[in-house]
């Protein structure tokens, strides 16, 4: 039912979404923490920048990333000193693009979770001899669990659904940068509606199941903790 390129596209998509989600959770945690707790006056600018991918046409994001990551971009000399010609049209470039593209979907749920927890549990932990890192891992992380589940699933699902950014900076190289959404587009262009149906239906189902999981888990968590 699935052709070999379709399976390759599926694998590339899952690899891309998984890797992007992991990177975003690691980068998003300190960023969201800072956004939730900082009293920095110009914090709102950073907040707006983080939210930008929510409304920006993906092609715009892709276009600028293409320039940034290309051999003549501002990062060109740095990349060349590392022995990299160009990150455009590579899987690595795609991951970088996806991290920007899905950033708000990970940062915002985490930021909301941290803000809802507030400083009090940290202060309590400190009065009970917990060091700052210990406070975070023993108190904040478990309390922010629903936020992390939401962030991970939204980040993953949103990356799976990526199209415009991939098209601009990834191109359509099977096994490297060809993801499902692009494969579907190819099938439709070639009037292969049958295969387009299989992939589209699969993505529809996957997205629904993921969201169902988030809502079920978060509901259960709320029910047990109140």
């Amino acid at each position, binding site marked *: 039912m699935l052709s070999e390129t379709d399976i390759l596209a599926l694998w590339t998509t899952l690899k891309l979404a998984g890797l992007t989600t992991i990177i975003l959770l690691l980068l998003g945690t300190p960023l969201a923490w800072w956004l939730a707790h900082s009293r920095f006056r110009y914090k709102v600018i950073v907040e707006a920048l983080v939210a930008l991918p929510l409304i920006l046409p993906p092609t715009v994001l892709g276009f600028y990333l293409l320039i940034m990551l290309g051999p003549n971009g501002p990062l060109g000399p740095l990349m060349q000193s590392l022995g990299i010609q160009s990150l455009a049209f590579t899987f690595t470039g795609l991951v970088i693009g996806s991290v920007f593209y899905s950033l708000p979907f990970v940062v915002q749920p985490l930021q909301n979770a941290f803000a809802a927890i507030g400083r009090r549990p940290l202060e309590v932990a400190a009065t009970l*001899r917990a060091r700052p890192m210990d406070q975070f891992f023993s108190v904040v992380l478990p309390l922010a669990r629903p936020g992390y589940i939401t962030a991970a699933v939204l980040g993953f699902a949103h990356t799976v659904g990526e199209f415009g950014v991939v098209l601009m900076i990834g191109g359509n190289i099977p096994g490297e940068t060809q993801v499902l959404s692009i494969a579907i587009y190819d099938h439709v262009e070639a009037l292969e509606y049958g295969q387009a149906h299989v992939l589209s239906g699969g993505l529809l189902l996957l997205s629904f199941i993921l969201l169902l999981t988030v809502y079920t888990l978060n509901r259960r968590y709320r029910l047990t*903790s109140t």
Partner: protein
Amino acid sequence: MTIEAQLHLKRDNFTLDAMFCVPSHGITALFGPSGCGKTTLLRAIAGLEKETRGRFVIGDTVWQDETRCLPTHQRELGYVFQEASLFEHLSVRQNLEYGLKRLPVETPRFDFDQAVTLLDLAALLPRQPARLSGGERQRVAIARALLSSPQLLLMDEPLAALDQQRKREILPFFARLHSELDIPMLYVSHAADEVARLADHLVLLNDGRVQASGPIAEMLTRADLPLAHDHDAAAIIEATVSGHDTQFGLTQLTFPGGQLSVPQPGSGSGLPIGQAVRLRVLARDVSLTLKQQTGTSILNIVPVTITALNAENAENVIQPTAQLLVQLDVNGVPLLARITRKSAMALALESGKAVFAQIKAIALLD
């Protein structure tokens, strides 16, 4: 051994500039009206207000001075917040063990079972915090603070968020902490009755500054402090149970100034002989006579010496008010009486004069 504080903290609309020195045993109340900086002071002592400058020393341990400032997790303290901040993701037992597990190996530990017994928590151990009542949560929070084996317990209005019934449920536990443990406590409160009941020392705060500090009995009766001019102004008497009058259901008490009788509290056989109790005598329940009265229904009459007469001047009122606050001394124990200026004139009361105080009501505090 003393607790010595000298702490400064500047905020946009508030400045804390607190200096006090109290003995490092018993309960010291940080008392004052809402917004006077009590909680901020307590947080500064705990190291939770990062911009605090100054000095805090307990015994020979320096928590903060000009050259260093220990972060909160290195201060050997127990902190009970106004609303019990239990970790919702942990069971009661895990909450109790949180601080215990993080103590350095060589630290002497407060016994887990003793804390559980002291605060009557055995039945609650497997439960989640969400399933506890307000009073139960606060008891867990207190036990959790004890189990981190603190050098100093900091309590931020631990009863404020509870209703009257829950308060009555918890107060005996504080009395137990006080009598059974040797951990000094700083107790923030704006409720005069709580302070009269629990505190040994009082630090009086007003607008971010320490107005006065000293032993509770003295602080409550000082005419230069607002406490003695309150509508519910009262003196505290420490007494011991010396006998029971079963025929009339009275408990006899001895204090340095003599004997007192109060109705036996509650039901049952009454308090054990020798038990220390604290009494509260409201200034408005004390009247003065020149000679010892007979033929009066008042049971408690003690000889006293007048130490001072103070006009109860309301602010911005030039005309003297109708009432006077009379400070009395009963063999070293201070007492207050509120009488009319007219009566004082009629009896020719003056400082140094020996008279009799008739006490209409005495409240047994614990």
